[in-house]
C-alpha cells in the first residue's frame, strides 16, 4: 500500500524518559512534516523537512529533535518527556512546490501518553 506509516501507534511512558516516533512514506514525496494534535483536536505544525533539510521549525521546545535520514523517513525524538507532551503526533508528506497547492497526506498518528 502506498501511504504514510508511523510507529508505534501507541506510546505510554513515564515523565523524564526519552522516546522516538518513526515515520516513513512511500509516496515519492520530498517533504515531510510533524504535527501535534492536542486533546481539543487542534492540529499544529511542528517541523517540516524537504530533502532532509529542515525548512519549518515552529516554536517547539528543544527537547523535540526531528531527524531525517533520507527523504522517505522523518523521525521525532523527544527527550525528558513531560506531562504536557501527551498528544497525538501525526506525520505527513507532500511534494514541495512553490505553488503551495501540494496536498499533504497524513499518517495514522501516534498517541503519546506521558504518566
Amino acid at each position, binding site marked *: 500500500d502506498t501511504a504514510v506509516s508511523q510507529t508505534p501507534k501507541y506510546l505510554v511512558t513515564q515523565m523524564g524518559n526519552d522516546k522516538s516516533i518513526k515515520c516513513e512514506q512511500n509516496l515519492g514525496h520530498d517533504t515531510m512534516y510533524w504535527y501535534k494534535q492536542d486533546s481539543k483536536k*487542534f492540529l499544529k505544525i511542528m517541523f517540516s523537512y524537504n530533502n532532509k533539510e529542515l525548512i519549518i521549525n515552529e516554536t517547539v521546545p528543544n527537547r523535540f529533535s526531528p531527524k531525517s535520514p533520507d527523504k522517505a523517513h522523518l523521525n521525532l525524538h523527544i527527550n525528558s518527556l513531560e506531562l504536557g507532551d501527551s498528544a497525538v503526533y501525526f506525520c505527513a508528506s507532500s511534494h*514541495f512546490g512553490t505553488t503551495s497547492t501540494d496536498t499533504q497526506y497524513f499518517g495514522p498518528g501516534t498517541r503519546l501518553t506521558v504518566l
Partner: protein
Amino acid sequence: GESVGLHLPTLSVQEGDNSIINCAYSNSASDYFIWYKQESGKGPQFIIDIRSNMDKRQGQRVTVLLNKTVKHLSLQIAATQPGDSAVYFCAENKRTSGSRLTFGEGTQLTVNP
C-alpha cells in the same frame, strides 16, 4: 444542517440531509485552502481543495465555497451518510516556501440514522 460561527464545534444532521460546515480563515495572503476529514483514531484525510482564484469547486457529494471578501470557507456535503461522521478541518496555506498548513479548530459532524 449548518454549523454557524467560528466556535460551534459540533454539527448533528439526519441521514440524507445536506450538511454545511463553515470555517473562517485569518490570513488574506493565503492562496490555497483544503478540507480534511478525520475519523476517530485515524489521521486527517484529504477531501477537497480550492485555490484563491476560484470561488467554488465540486467533488463527489462535496462542494467547497470560498468567499475571499469575508475570508470564509464552507464545505457542503450532499445526502449526508453515517460514514460521513467525523471531525472536519479546514486548512489554509500561506505564501511561504514550503507547505505551511494552518488548521482551523475542526467541526465534529454526527450523522443520525
